[in-house]
C-alpha cells in the first residue's frame, strides 16, 4: 500500500476521531499555559500538532498510543512556541516568568500536562467559554469549536447556517473570551453559583441542539449528545461544581440520550414517542441517569433540571406508551411551569393535558397560554395544533397549521414527517 492510501484509509479517520476526543483537552491545557489572551495561539498549536501527526504517521506508521503521541507532540510544540516568543509575549500571567526561564520551563510544562490538571483545565475552559459577557450562541459555538473539536463546517451544519456566520460568531466570541477572562479558573465563593448556573444552561442548550431533530446528520447529533454528557460528567467529578443541579442535568442528558436511537427509523424518518420501539432505548444510560437523579435528590433546591429529568425518567420507566404515568408527569409540569412559566413549557404541558383529558381540553389550554403569540413562528406549536385539530376532526384548521409547521421547520426529516400528516388528512 502506498503512503497516500495509508493516509486516507487509516490515518485520516483516526485523526478525525482523535480531533473530536483529544483536541478539546489540548486546547484547554495550552490555553492554560499560553494564557486566555492567547486562545488563538493555543488553537493554532493544536492544529499544527494534528497536521504533524498526519504527516508523521503516514510516513512512519501509527504509534501504539496515538493519544499519548499527540500530548507529547503538543508539549514539545508548546516549548518551541515559548522559546520563540518569550521575549515578545506574556503567557499565562501566573507562570509566564517560569516559562521564560530554562531553569523551569520543562518542569512547569510537565506539571501542566498532568492528567488531573488537564481535567481541571477543561472545566476552567468551560467556565471561560460560558462567561456571561459572551453572547449565548457564541458560548455554544466556542464550546463546540474549542472543547468538542468540531470544525467550523460541522458547527455551521449543526446550526443550519453558513460557515461565514459561524466564523463571525466565533470571532466575536473569541474577542469577548479574551477581554473578559483574565485567567482560566473555576470561580469561587458567591460567583460560583451564578457562573455554574450559566455553564449548566449552556450545556443544556448545547444538548437541545443535539436533541432537536434539526440536524441533517444523526451522527453529529449522537456525537454532540455524548459530548454534553462528557462535559457535564467533568462537572460532577469536581467537588466545587458537584451540586445537586449538576447531577440533575446529567441525569436529564442520560435519559434523553438513551432514547436517541429510537427517534428515527432506518429511512431516517422521525418516529414519535408513542411509536418508538422501546427495546432500542439504551438501558445502561437509563441506569446511569437514575444514579445521578438519586444523587441530585439532596439539598433544598428543586431546579428545572430536576423536574425535566424526573419527566424524562417517567418516559424511560414506562414499558409501553400506554403505561406512561401522565398524572405524575403533569404534576411535574405544574411545578416546572410555576418555576419558569415559559410558553414552551406550557405548550408541552398542554400535550400532557391531551393525554389525560383529550384534544379539546388541550386546545383550550394552549389558547390560554399567556403570550402564546410569541411562539407563532415556532413550528412545533403548529405541528401540535395540527395534530389536536385533526383529532377533533377539524380538517381545515389542521391543514392550515400543518402547512405553517411545514413552512417553518428547518430540517428535511421534520418536513417529510409533516408532509405525511398533511397527506393523511
Amino acid at each position: 500500500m502506498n503512503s497516500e492510501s495509508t493516509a486516507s484509509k487509516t490515518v485520516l479517520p483516526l485523526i478525525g476521531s482523535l480531533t473530536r476526543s483529544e483536541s478539546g483537552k489540548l486546547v484547554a491545557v495550552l490555553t492554560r499555559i499560553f494564557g486566555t489572551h492567547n486562545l488563538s495561539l493555543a488553537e493554532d498549536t493544536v492544529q499544527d500538532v494534528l497536521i504533524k501527526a498526519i504527516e508523521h504517521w503516514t510516513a512512519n506508521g501509527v504509534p501504539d498510543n496515538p493519544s499519548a503521541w499527540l500530548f507529547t507532540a503538543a508539549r514539545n510544540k508548546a516549548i518551541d512556541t515559548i522559546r520563540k516568543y518569550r521575549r515578545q509575549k506574556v503567557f499565562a500571567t501566573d507562570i509566564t516568568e517560569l516559562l521564560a526561564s530554562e531553569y523551569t520551563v520543562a518542569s512547569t510544562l510537565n506539571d501542566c500536562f498532568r492528567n488531573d490538571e488537564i481535567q481541571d483545565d477543561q472545566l476552567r475552559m468551560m467556565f471561560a467559554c460560558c462567561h456571561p459577557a459572551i453572547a449565548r450562541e457564541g458560548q455554544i459555538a466556542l464550546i463546540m469549536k474549542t472543547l468538542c473539536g468540531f470544525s467550523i463546517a460541522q458547527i455551521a451544519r449543526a446550526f443550519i447556517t453558513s460557515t461565514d456566520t459561524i466564523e463571525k460568531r466565533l470571532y466575536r466570541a473569541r474577542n469577548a473570551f479574551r477581554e473578559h477572562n483574565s485567567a482560566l479558573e473555576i470561580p469561587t465563593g458567591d460567583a460560583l453559583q451564578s457562573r455554574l448556573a450559566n455553564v449548566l444552561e449552556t450545556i443544556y442548550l448545547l444538548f437541545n441542539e443535539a436533541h432537536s431533530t434539526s440536524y441533517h446528520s444523526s451522527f453529529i447529533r449522537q456525537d454532540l449528545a455524548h459530548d454534553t454528557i462528557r462535559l457535564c460528567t467533568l462537572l460532577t467529578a469536581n467537588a466545587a461544581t458537584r451540586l445537586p443541579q449538576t447531577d440533575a442535568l446529567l441525569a436529564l442528558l442520560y435519559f434523553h440520550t438513551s432514547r436517541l436511537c429510537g427517534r428515527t427509523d432506518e429511512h431516517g424518518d422521525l418516529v414519535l414517542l408513542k411509536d418508538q420501539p422501546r427495546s432500542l432505548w439504551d438501558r445502561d444510560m437509563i441506569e446511569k441517569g437514575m444514579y445521578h437523579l438519586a444523587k441530585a435528590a439532596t439539598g433544598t433546591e428543586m431546579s428545572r433540571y430536576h423536574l425535566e429529568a424526573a419527566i424524562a425518567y417517567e418516559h424511560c420507566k414506562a414499558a409501553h406508551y400506554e403505561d406512561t404515568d401522565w398524572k405524575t408527569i403533569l404534576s411535574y409540569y405544574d411545578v416546572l411551569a410555576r418555576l419558569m412559566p415559559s410558553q414552551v413549557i406550557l405548550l408541552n404541558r398542554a400535550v400532557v393535558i391531551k393525554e389525560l383529558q383529550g384534544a379539546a381540553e388541550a386546545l383550550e389550554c394552549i389558547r390560554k397560554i399567556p403570550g402564546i403569540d410569541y411562539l407563532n413562528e415556532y413550528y412545533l406549536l403548529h405541528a401540535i395544533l395540527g395534530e389536536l385539530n385533526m383529532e377533533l376532526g377539524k380538517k381545515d384548521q389542521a391543514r392550515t397549521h400543518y402547512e405553517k409547521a411545514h413552512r417553518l421547520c428547518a430540517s428535511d426529516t421534520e418536513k417529510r414527517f409533516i408532509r405525511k400528516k398533511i397527506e393523511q388528512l
Partner: protein
Amino acid sequence: MKEYLLVFRATEGANRRNESEAAASMELWKNWIGSIAQNGKLVGGQPLVAGGKLMTKGGQVTDAPFAEGKEVLNGYLMIKADHFEEAQELSKGCPIFDDKGGSLEIREIATMNM
C-alpha cells in the same frame, strides 16, 4: 523595590548527571524558583552552557580558562527584593548549594543617575 542578580557558580563538571538525577535537580530548581515567582519576586534568569570564550581588547578570543575542577559561572537569576537581607533570605533554598563547589553571589542592580 530593588532588583538583584544572583550569580551561580559550581565546580566545572559537577553538573554532569544521569537522566533521573537531572530530573530530580530540575524539580528542585522549579520548586525554588517557583516559590520566588509565587511571591511576585521573579524577574528572570537562565542556566548557562559549560565552556565559553574569553574576548579581550582588540578582539582577541581565547578559550576561557575553564579547567576541570575550577569553579565557573553556570547560571543567573534576577529577582526583586526590598533590601539585601530579603534577597539573601530568598536565596537560601537555592539548589546550587547541592552542587559540588556550589556558591551564589548576590549583586544589587545599579541605577545609573546621570
